[in-house]
């Protein structure tokens, strides 16, 4: 017994100071962080929470992946889910803050995807992997932004559904033009045609880079979950900063009342252009990720046409207009949903459509919202109940 007590005392002697210093330093570090967090305004707090959740999910998924607990399906979906989330965040900036409905964001995704894939494919043997991917990413984003800018100049003169249809038109034009592009490379250099493969007149050793509707085959597969998550987090920070910057506030003022904004002397066109271009650039990043995750890239109605534009709009509306983290969640859920319904075979898409209608009614119908409030089925009530329990 005595020995034990002695041991206890001696350990206390050793550990005690260590523990004290640790807790002291911990306090020194944590308290300011906590205080800093408390001082932040609400939106910033929300951003930090979202980023933390994404990081936590990333950590969980990575651990599951390395321990072999993640199904191949989930592994395969990680990058596409992030790509769609990015495009949804981009579109949300346009719909939620600029207040303009765009039905052509898949077009910007398409531009980003094809530009970057073309670059990667052309310089596959010339530039080493890492710098090449970085250049491809920057290039894809920049060209998507450029397209966004060029398209925004005429488009933003319109409003409402007319603007929507013009963005849809641009998206379709982009898809259509890419489908008739033939680009090849041989010893003599690059060849280009808008008719067919034969008119390229290439040497026999030539390599097709873009083969019309067959698109780009053999893009190096470089998008990883880590890169995708980092880009998504970066996009959330950028959009958050933008929305809460001077420009962002001006954009919102224009959304709420353009005439008033003009009267105050805001350069309306400039601010709108900036917002739209940024929105297109983020969609382009999504495209780069998408392109470098799949061996064969083609532009069809379902992956880069109006169907995809509409799908992304669904993410935005379901996730909450103006709510970036909501867009991410909706993109994740709605991409996963049809995959998880695979067990239903041919009934899959039918059930999916019913769930979609149901979710929309549940979340938006005024009558149902009232009913939910009355029966304590909305978020505040649910969170409230948890909080009470904690106190007790």
């Amino acid at each position, binding site marked *: 017994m005595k020995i034990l007590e002695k041991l206890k005392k001696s350990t206390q002697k050793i550990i005690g100071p260590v523990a004290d210093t640790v807790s002291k330093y911990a306090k020194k570090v944590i308290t300011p962080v906590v205080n800093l967090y408390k001082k932040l305004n609400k939106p910033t707090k929300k951003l930090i929470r979202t980023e933390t959740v994404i990081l936590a999910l990333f950590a969980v998924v990575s651990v599951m992946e390395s321990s072999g607990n993640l199904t191949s*399906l989930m592994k*395969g979906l990680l990058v596409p889910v992030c790509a769609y989330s990015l495009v949804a965040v981009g579109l949300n900036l346009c719909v939620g803050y600029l207040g303009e409905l765009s039905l052509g964001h898949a077009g910007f995704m398409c531009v980003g995807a094809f530009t970057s894939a073309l670059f990667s494919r052309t310089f596959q043997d010339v530039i080493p992997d890492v710098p090449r991917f970085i250049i491809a990413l920057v290039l894809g984003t920049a060209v998507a932004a450029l397209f966004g800018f060029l398209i925004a100049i005429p488009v933003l003169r319109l409003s409402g559904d007319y603007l929507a249809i013009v963005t849809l038109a641009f998206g379709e034009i982009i898809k259509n033009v890419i489908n008739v592009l033939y680009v090849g490379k041989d010893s003599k250099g690059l060849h280009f045609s808008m008719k067919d493969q*034969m008119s390229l007149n290439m040497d026999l050793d030539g390599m097709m880079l873009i083969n019309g509707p067959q698109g780009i085959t053999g893009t190096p597969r470089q998008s990883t979950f880590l890169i995708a998550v980092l880009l998504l987090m970066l996009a959330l920070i950028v959009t958050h900063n933008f929305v809460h910057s001077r420009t962002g506030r001006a954009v919102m003022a224009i959304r709420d009342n353009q005439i008033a904004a003009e009267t105050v002397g805001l350069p309306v066109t400039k601010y709108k252009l900036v917002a739209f271009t940024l929105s297109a650039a983020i969609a382009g990043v999504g495209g780069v990720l998408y392109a470098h995750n799949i061996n*064969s890239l083609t532009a069809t109605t379902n992956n880069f046409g109006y169907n995809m534009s509409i799908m992304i709009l669904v993410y935005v509306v379901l996730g909450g207009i103006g709510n970036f983290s909501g867009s991410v969640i909706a993109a994740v859920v709605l991409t996963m949903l049809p995959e998880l319904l695979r067990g239903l075979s041919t009934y899959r898409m039918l059930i999916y459509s019913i769930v979609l209608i149901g979710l929309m009614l549940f979340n938006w119908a005024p009558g149902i919202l009232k009913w939910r409030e009355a029966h304590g089925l909305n*978020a505040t009530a*649910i969170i409230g109940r948890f909080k009470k329990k904690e106190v007790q």
Partner: protein
Amino acid sequence: MKKKALSLVLSAAMMTSLFVGCGNGSAGSSESVDTSGELTWRIGGIGPITGGAAQYGQGVMNAIQLAVDEVNEAGGINGYQISFNFQDDEADQQKSVNAYNTLKDWGMQILEGTVTSGAGQAVAAETYADRMFMLTPSASSPDVINGHDNVYQVCFSDPNQGAVSADYIADNKLATKVGVIYDSSDPYSSGVYQTFATEAKAKGLDIVASEAFTADSKTDFTTQLQKCKDAGADLLFLPFYYTEGSIVLTQANQMGYKPTMFGVDGFDGLLTVENFDAKLAEGVYLLTPFAADSQDEATKKFVSAYEEKFGGTPNQFAADAYDGIYILKEALEAANLTPEASNEEICDALIAGLQKVNYNGLTGEGMTWNEKGEVSKAPKAVVIKDGAYASVD
């Protein structure tokens, strides 16, 4: 408040979906045998069973199911039953890769898919990396097999068809002025067109008009037909599927334009389109390895079994898919493998084995494969006479 409610509901949905996803990754859509515990061959299939290309995928799914049931009834392959799982890809690359991953989670050992070429290119890259054997019934683009030693085709490839068509037209002097209508947004259609055009030039055929259409405007062909007519084309080469084919024939008839029509293997199925006036198809040439009204025993048995079980007449896609299972069976039996072998062992054995196979099936006699994965069978031209295929030779 509303937004919060929304994100809460959604996060809840996401969490459940994640968990469901982890636990339930192996749920199959058309599993034929419950395999709990019992060792079986696990063969997967991928193709569109919803979306615009659904009719091709459903034919393949049904035909494989039919073949699998027959093989199982007859004792399986090397004494082991086959379990079969078919996944939908809506003919989209990304969804096809998702379908492939789903099948991998299910424990697939051999893939019989994909149905379409675009999806096939994306999935072939995956199977190549995973060393999974892939036999596609109908993805005919050379890009599907190029650079992938593990991918084999049951159907003949696009360049093959384009060249054979041009040769046939030139050698039999069907026409000198040729008009082409093709789907510029479809890899299959534009692939066949390109090789056709190259070969036609070499053979001295004069292509007087080459008109495209796209997936977004594939119901109105009056303009393309009018241009071919104005250019004086006396033969139309139509490398696309029978759905559009039936419209082209109807509209040409309405215009009173009657050139020789020459389709490729996509035209097979034309006569089975419900309510289609077969008179319009009279005299149409097409390439096909399979005819549903053929009189040999095997075809008759397959067609009647298919009609009885699923309704509707099987097309060439279905026949290729049906053959696919028997081709796999022959190669697996020759290699004397059991399902205990790893995917890689099966893949290597099948790569070597398929090059030794000499198979007589619905879609050809004495089919053999080269090391690139191409099948030897030659596309054969038939002409439609009295509502049935007639050999032209």
